[in-house]
Each structure stands twice: as structure tokens, then as C-alpha cells.
């Protein structure tokens, strides 16, 4: 099944009932929308078909941040996204991992209404967490192996590592 991955999320924003008791079943927290910040009404995601693992995609994104941090990702159904009428546009990514860049897409969400509907789709998928220490390890080994192009890794992050 073809899926999308959204990197750099905070999994706790996606806690739902019963983790968040005051939420009705099927509802999501408003804070979840923070993880779906659009730019030019589009949302940056990656195709996820299993050929490149989710951790590698997440690390590619994390390598562009200022500092090592816990990071999360969400994997959700592509067909459900397209059913919302959201246009999917392939667009080369700008991470430090060339392979991951080839998976990058922009979702042309256009409207706030669609964004909320998209959030529901994301919430029905799965979320995962990578701890900060693991992020540090993976960025470091990624640079050493050449998987991450060192010059494209955030300079502040490189200093911290």
C-alpha cells in the first residue's frame, strides 16, 4: 500500500482518546495542526513504500535542524489523501540525503478545511518516535558513511555532534 511520511512531528500532539481523556473518539487535538504547517498552502511529505526506511527519511530531515532533538514521524495512507482531492506533486527535496530527496512530494492542500481533513487521515495512520540520542548516532554515522552529504547537514548541528 502506497503511503506518505511526514517527518519532524511531535507524537504527543497526535495522542487521541483514550490517551487524552477529554477528546471524543475520532477527534484529534488542535495542537496536531502545528505538525502540519503549510507553506504556500502545500505540505512537505515523503513517499513511503518501504524501499527507504522511515528512520532514514526522518534522519535526513533532522539533519537540517539546528540541534539534535527527539523527532517523530507519521505514516499515513496515500489513497486517503488523494480521496480528499489533494494534489500530489513530486518535488526534489532539499535534505542532506539524496536518496530521500527523490521521495519528496508536496501536497497541495490549498484550504484549511482540507488541512483538517488531512489531519484526520494522518491521525488514522501510525506515529513513531526516534530519541535524541539515536538521532545523534544516525546523523553521525550518516555523515561518516556518506549517506548524508556533510555540507548539507546544518552547521550548528555538525558542531554539536
Amino acid at each position, binding site marked *: 500500500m502506497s503511503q506518505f511520511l511526514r517527518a519532524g512531528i*511531535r507524537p*504527543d500532539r497526535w495522542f487521541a482518546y483514550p490517551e487524552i481523556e477529554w477528546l471524543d473518539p475520532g477527534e484529534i487535538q488542535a495542537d496536531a495542526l502545528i505538525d502540519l504547517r503549510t507553506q504556500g498552502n502545500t505540505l512537505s511529505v515523503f513517499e513511503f513504500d518501504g524501499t527507504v526506511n522511515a528512520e532514514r527519511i526522518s534522519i535526513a530531515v533532522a539533519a537540517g535542524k539546528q*540541534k539534535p*532533538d527527539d*523527532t517523530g514521524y507519521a505514516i499515513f495512507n496515500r489513497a486517503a489523501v488523494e480521496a480528499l482531492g489533494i494534489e500530489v506533486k513530486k518535488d526534489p527535496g532539499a535534505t542532506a540525503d539524496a536518496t530521500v530527496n527523490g521521495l519528496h512530494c508536496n501536497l497541495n492542500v490549498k484550504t484549511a478545511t482540507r488541512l483538517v481533513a488531512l489531519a484526520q487521515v494522518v491521525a488514522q495512520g501510525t506515529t513513531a518516535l526516534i530519541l535524541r540520542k539515536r538521532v545523534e548516532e544516525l546523523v553521525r554515522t550518516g555523515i561518516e558513511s556518506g549517506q548524508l552529504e556533510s555540507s548539507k547537514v546544518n552547521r550548528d548541528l555538525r558542531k554539536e555532534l
Partner: protein
Amino acid sequence: MSFSASTAPPEPVRVVSELIGFGGTDRATIDALLGPRQRTAPISSGTTQMSFATLHPGTPLDFPTEGALENFPSLEADVGALHWDEPRGLLTLDSPTLILTAVAPRPMPLLHSTQHFFDRALSLPVRWSLTPVLDATTAEQRIQDSSDVFSSTDPLSRPSNFLVREVSVAFTAAAGEVFEEGVESQFSQALESLLKTHGTAAVAALEALVFPSTANPEVAVESLKWLGTADHGDSRQHRRRLLERLLYSANARIRYAAVLGIAAMDDATSLPAVRSALKREPHRRLRQYFQLVVDQLEAVQ
């Protein structure tokens, strides 16, 4: 050690404590007490008193007046949550803060919320003991300190009203900030500055703001993640213990942030606390995250 009450009521002093009950509990009673959905029952802020005597609802209870705390005439404890530690057979009443007040000893009626709890605990013949984290000398020093001026070199500093306000201002300002993974927030910079200036007292002030269920979860999560990464050796133990206690917060997002803070500290000392919290955690997704941290800390060990 001596202590005498003054005419002017001194400010409360916060002492980290843990209240542990022994014996006489059974699984069915605890399950009935805590409800079917979770083993951690949040109890709205209340005040209770402890005794070595058997608990009976409605009975005014006295705090123990022996050992390290014998010179403090009255103790009050904010009750945070009740936990049933099945493997150890212990009932634990977490008290995020134990507040010592310099007033004459007096029977204190249980507040409604706590009374309700004890009504439900009718069948629990539990004996309680009080285990303060800080020793008596420490506590005495704290209770005698009525100044609003704190030094970052004094790890025993209590939060002044001024400092609580300072942290509160940072919390309020942070409500308008968007927190992003891997990006240092202005809020964390503000907290860092307060920590460097006020030391452990800043952590205690933060604690006072994070514990209430009304805390903005986005800001609270950011503050707890920061607690784990703060570069401040003097407050390290205090921060670690606060994060460990928050593993039992009634708020799942707070528990999540607490375990991330612990992971960031990467201190195997926290391993028993995270393991224990993992066993009590009612939600699968959080258990997965707790397990990640257990795995990390085991590797450190």
C-alpha cells in the same frame, strides 16, 4: 536541631517526598479503587495528613513526629496520584510536594477531594510512612530561609513568589510560540537564563507551574524536554527526580515529555523509575515510548 514558630506565618517550603503504604492491600481492592482503565488515579489537589496508625476515613491524622521530621510541627502534602506497584506489593501515594508550614500542630480535616478518596479506600488497612528526600538539616535550612533572594550556588533554594512569577511570565509568553523539533525555542532560552541565575529554585518554580492540570500542554512539554537537556550540574538531581515523578502525571503528554527529558539526561539511575512507570502505563503508545527509553538506559548501564 530546633525549630520555633514565629508570629508572622513564613512561606511554605517545598520538600520533595514520597509516601509509601505497606501491607494489607489486595489487587481487587486496588483495581476497584483505581478504576478499570488505569492504575494511576489522579486525585485533584488536596491536602492530607499521614499517620503510622491505620487509616480510617474521616479520622484526623497526624504526621509522624519522629525521625528526621520530629521538629516540624505540621506537615501538609499535596496529593498527586495513587499507584499500585504490583510486583513489590506497595501502594504508593505520590506527593509531588510536601509543604512544611511553621504553624502550631493542629488536627486538619481532610479536604473534600481527599476525603472522597479515603471513603473509597475504606477497606484498605494501610500503614503509611513518610520518606523525605531531604534530610532534617536540609529541611531546617530551607524553612529558615525567608528571603526572596536566591543564589544559583545554593541547591536548596526554594522558589520565591518572585521567581514563580518570573517562570510564569515565561510560560505565558511561550503560549504564543511555535515549538519545533531541533530548533531552540525562546522559551527554553528564557528557562536556561532563569536556571543559571536562580539555580535549583528555578526548577522548583517550574515544578509549581507544570504540575497543575491546567498547564498549557505545549509549553509544559517543551519545559520538560528542556529540563532533560539543561546544562546545569547543580540542579541535575533535582531535575531528574522531578522528571521521574512526572512519569505518573495524570496528563499523558506530560508523561511523554517527562520520559523524553529522562532520555535526554541519559542517566541509568532513572532506569528503575522508567521501568516501574512502564509497568503502570495504561496506554500502548506511551508504553512503546517508555520502552525505547528503557532500552537506551539499559545500554548506558
